């Protein structure tokens, strides 16, 4: 089984998010970039599914040379080889088009993404990719088991879950529950340096979404403290003052 895991290079979860150029660009100054946490889950599951010679795991990233540290991390965790499409990831549509183009030329049995990237949070790539490749897609999965040429997945729905059976190939976005992220061991880190990482030039895409402006959430007013002995008053305040209950 050949599995492709799509990975994003995103700001570390502890990053304080600020913007430059009149709030039109994300300020990357001093920001530590990491492998998107959901993609780590997808990668971990892909490795589990192919362990013991049952297949290979390729990771693909759309990014500039600066994302290679993150790609090497994925190789250290256990991916067999990597592809970097040499472009700035303009938006989900651009990214999905690049991956679809690559997959059309190099078919895979299963394509995994994270449920969303923690920077732009669109949850869009998996379903766009499914549509572009004309194969099924499930955007947010909690479990994934493969049996022969078919898989059973559990997806999240409001207030419950749904279990689907899907023939390979398909695209799925991994969320918590699919696998525990793996920590690279020393052998993995050493071998990551020599595993193949090929760089492919992007295809032209007509984009239809432009990020025009960013802002940070407005600061809240000073917290109103209620003494623990008067906890009951809080309920009254939430009713009469804040009007939320």
């Amino acid at each position, binding site marked *: 089984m050949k599995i492709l895991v799509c990975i994003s290079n995103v700001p570390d979860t502890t990053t304080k998010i600020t913007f430059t150029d009149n709030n039109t660009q994300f300020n990357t100054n001093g920001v530590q970039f990491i492998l998107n946490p959901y993609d780590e889950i997808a990668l971990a599951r892909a490795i589990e599914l192919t362990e013991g010679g049952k297949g290979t795991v390729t990771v693909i990233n759309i990014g500039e040379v600066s994302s290679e540290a993150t790609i090497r991390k994925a190789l250290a965790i256990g991916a067999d080889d990597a592809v970097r499409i040499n472009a700035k990831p303009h938006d989900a549509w651009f990214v999905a088009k690049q991956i679809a183009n690559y997959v059309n030329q190099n078919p895979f049995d299963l394509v995994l993404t994270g449920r969303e990237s923690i920077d732009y949070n669109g949850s869009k*790539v998996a379903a766009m990719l499914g549509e572009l490749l004309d194969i099924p897609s499930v955007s947010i999965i909690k479990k994934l088991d493969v049996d022969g040429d078919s898989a059973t997945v559990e997806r999240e729905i*409001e*207030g419950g879950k749904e279990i689907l059976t899907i023939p390979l190939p398909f695209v799925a976005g991994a969320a918590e529950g699919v696998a525990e992220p793996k920590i690279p061991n020393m052998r993995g880190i050493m071998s990551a340096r020599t595993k193949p990482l090929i760089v492919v030039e992007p295809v032209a895409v007509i984009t239809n979404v432009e990020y025009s402006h960013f802002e940070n959430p407005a600061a809240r007013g000073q917290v109103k403290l209620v003494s623990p002995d008067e906890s009951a008053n809080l309920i009254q305040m939430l009713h009469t003052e804040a009007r939320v209950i």
Partner: protein
Amino acid sequence: MAVLIYTENTSGKFKKSTFEAVSYARTIADQSGTTLTAISIGEVPVEELASLSKYGADKILQVANAQLKNFINQAYASVIAEAAQKESADIVVLSNSFSGRGLAPRIAVKLEAGLADGAIALPEISSGQFKVKKVAFSGKAFATVELTSAKKVISLSPNAFQVIEKQAEGKIEEFSPAIKQTDFRAMVKEVIQSTDKVSLPDAEIVVSGGRGLKGPENWGMLEELAGLLGAATACSKPVSDAGWRSHSEHVGQTGIAVSPNLYIAVGISGAIQHLAGVSSSKVIVVINKDPEAPFFKVADYGIVGDAFEVVPKLIAAVKEYKASA
């Protein structure tokens, strides 16, 4: 031109988030001086379908094909895209629910439309520009995206837009779309729905617990408080990582982002990753023993005190309030 709204149902019923999306779509139709067509797929009773007219649906397309009984995003996307063509709709609106996230991108690709996912406000339409505001960086920021394509798809975040009653004709029409068998490769085996619990992404009130609660056995009081308030329960990442609560309750940057009217955080210190997931909440209440807990900096109301003393008092107060109301 027209606006098309996909009205998602759960077991034949529309939820509040669907009516929010209908109201949102109606307002966009009014902004652009056009009509609103709703499309419903699956078995939905006629009275329920007719209720869409109360929120401004001029026309309601009903797709009752038995093959479309279960939600399959690939098949539903084909149906909705075909309806958009038939209605000459250049704006398609849907809820940014779990299903909506699997659906909207496929519709956008089919229609060659730009997609604004998780919109939190009405589009700003001026001098040929169409801009939509959404949450980005997992709640740490907002982004305004411009959709430059002729057709547009917008998925609306729950609790971001108010339900507005506006009676329209709401004529119900049968719609029989073309069925493509290859759209049905994925098959639903089982749907497990817990109906007694409020779903977290839709909840208007959320009661959330952190490590300060010391162990899963102490969640009873939070569940009681949530039950009394009609709230959903949630937790911080360390709690779900420790297996005290299910991952589906984990709120924060790598869990679910919520935007309830009221978020009550008990025993959660407020790591930056957790704050990201709750920053769109309208009112935040923090209960924590530690007066230096960072959560107090973003709270509207706070109690510096022991959860095991404070929560039972809140429960008693809510009971009293409910008895007097």
